[in-house]
């Protein structure tokens, strides 16, 4: 797919970008930026992932809160079905040299229109379809205008109820310019400090100061981003927002980015969460949607469940798109002898993967599973050597 990486065009009036499915997400960001537009999907792996894959897995990303998901922003696509038929749904292929080669056409359109209400919206089945119904070969995505003013702050709270207050206040004070709210818990931040790439080190050591450590606090860190088109007005909104949080003691402290370098550092810390935790040991990853109110209860309940199952030496890390109620829960098992790790992993798998138990565990808490539970590569190969099929199932 990586060879199918042509960007066809970006309509300067509708903002619709049409491209091949093999385009790297970062290249779409760069192309759109040149033309004064912003590609609405932004995830940590944008330097390597392809848009076709993003569409097939319905990737959410940092700006889901502001721009919505791919179900809304993808306005057209071309897919190849299992029997070889090419299905085109509202995607402009006039620039595609291979247009005439295709002998089977189920549906044909000649423009990536911003709005297409004709018939059933079949493309929705392929978004998140994970390739089960067809391979996505082209997409048309509606891009918003590039915001010219960006403000980012990293806030420190003592409890989740403060975080809930931030969510409310941000909608009131930042309103239409609010573009992202991300949560990082203490356990995750400590792993970023230890195993991260070094970006934002200076800031992290202030966040995890020895004083805070001594007070045995488990602070929660919230990244708030605003994007708009008037720097002066946006800065004053951000200032009013932070002042109101500080004066009401909703936040213990906050760090406001003064320039692009600070913005890169704060986002760099957020994007380091996943790779840092992966370097910390063997990781069990859960990507779940939770009622926003109960977001942090997750970590507590998972910790309790692990304790009750006599599984020790595990760190539960939580980070994610808190404004969407989407949490990345990672259970990290420290570096210890392989056999012990494997046994532990097996038990975790059984505890959380065995469908009935998992659905039961989730159902009573109104969670939904966004992604399958999976064990890291090292884990699988170890498991294979130790477990028979019957035992596993």
């Amino acid at each position, binding site marked *: 797919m990586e060879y199918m990486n042509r960007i066809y065009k970006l309509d300067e009036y509708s903002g619709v970008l049409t491209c091949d499915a093999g385009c790297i997400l970062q290249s779409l960001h760069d192309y759109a930026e040149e033309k004064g537009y912003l590609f609405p999907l932004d995830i940590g792996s944008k330097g390597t992932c392809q848009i076709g894959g993003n569409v097939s897995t319905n990737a959410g990303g940092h700006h889901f809160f502001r721009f919505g998901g791919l179900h809304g922003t993808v306005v057209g696509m071309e897919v190849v079905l299992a029997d070889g038929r090419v299905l085109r749904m509202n995607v402009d292929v006039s620039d595609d040299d291979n247009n005439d080669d295709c002998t089977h056409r189920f549906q044909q359109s000649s423009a990536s229109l911003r709005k297409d209400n004709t018939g059933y919206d079949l493309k929705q089945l392929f978004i998140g379809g994970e390739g089960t119904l067809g391979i996505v070969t082209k997409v048309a995505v509606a891009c918003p205008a590039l915001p*010219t*003013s*960006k403000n980012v702050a990293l806030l420190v709270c003592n409890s989740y109820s403060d975080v809930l207050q931030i969510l409310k206040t941000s909608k009131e004070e930042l309103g239409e310019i609010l573009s992202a709210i991300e949560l990082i818990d203490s356990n995750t931040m400590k792993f970023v400090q230890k195993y991260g790439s070094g970006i934002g080190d*200076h*800031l992290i050591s*202030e966040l995890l100061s020895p004083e805070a450590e001594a007070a045995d606090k488990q602070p929660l860190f919230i990244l708030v981003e605003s994007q708009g*088109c008037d*720097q*002066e007005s946006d*800065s004053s909104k951000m*200032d009013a927002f*932070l*002042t109101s949080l*500080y004066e009401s003691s909703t*936040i213990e*402290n*906050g*760090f*406001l*980015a*003064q*320039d*692009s*370098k*600070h913005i*890169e550092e704060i986002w760099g810390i957020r994007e380091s969460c996943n790779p840092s935790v992966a370097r910390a040991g063997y990781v069990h990853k859960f990507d779940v949607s939770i009622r926003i109110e109960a977001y942090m209860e997750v970590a507590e309940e998972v910790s309790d469940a692990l304790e009750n199952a006599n599984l020790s030496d595990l760190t539960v890390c939580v980070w994610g798109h808190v404004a969407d109620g989407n949490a990345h829960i990672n259970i990290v098992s420290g570096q210890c002898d392989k056999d012990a790790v494997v046994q532990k992993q097996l038990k975790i798998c059984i505890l959380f993967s065995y469908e009935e138990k998992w659905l039961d565990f989730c159902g009573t808490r109104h969670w939904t599973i966004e992604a399958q539970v999976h064990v890291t590569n090292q884990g699988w190969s170890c498991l294979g050597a130790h477990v028979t099929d019957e035992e596993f199932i």
Partner: protein
Amino acid sequence: MRKILVPIKRVIDYAQKIRVDPSKGAQGVQLKNVKMSMNPFCEIAVEEAIQLKEQNKGAEVVAISVGPKQCTETIRTALAMGADRGIHIETKPDVRGDYIDLQPWAIATLLKGVVEKEDAVDLVLLGKQSIDSDCGQTGPLLAGLLNAPQATFAANIERGDDGSFTVERETDTGTETIKLNASGKPAVITCDLRLNTPRYPTMPNIMKAKKKPVETISLEDMVKELGLDLDEVLTPKNEVVEVYEPPPRKEGETVGSIDELLGKLKEKGLVA
């Protein structure tokens, strides 16, 4: 230590893509709706001033900026980092600070006046250069006008009990250490990248900064007060003839095989 003066400049943010409209001639740099922030080297100078203040109780850090009304924001950032007060020499909105109108000579002349007016200034810390004009001249010109000792491209600064400054400075071949003796004149030091990592303004400091005093005075009034000539200050000594974007890098050619590569190299006369 008494006063540390830190001149700071508001420039286009370093990560912004600069757009040039050649039809507008030398004035063609697009400034509308472009993100501005404190010059990164000025930020380093502010940080150093605050660190010196923390080591020398009783020292006062004064941030000063010459520019349009939005410069007050830049001064507030310096105050939020820990500076004690600010001076804003306000220019009319159409006066360009990026070398078109205001140039280092004018700034240095103004700063000389301010240093003399403030009195009790022991140190002037500046960024080594601004990222819009890249001149690196304001510090050295100021030192010359004041007849003061100077050190540029500082990577480390130590203050001696006798009021001297020992500075490690960056050179093309390594580091050079020089000592600025206490002379009755303020030491003038320009700051380079390795000197420190500027702190983030924290909420408590941002709140405190709102109450710190910032004196705003128009360029015209300041010039009058210092007994200078406005025309002299506003007429640039150097004229910008042309501003253009660097030519786009030509895309590389992918070849299918080693033979093809050799063929192309021979074609271009690069291989016999």
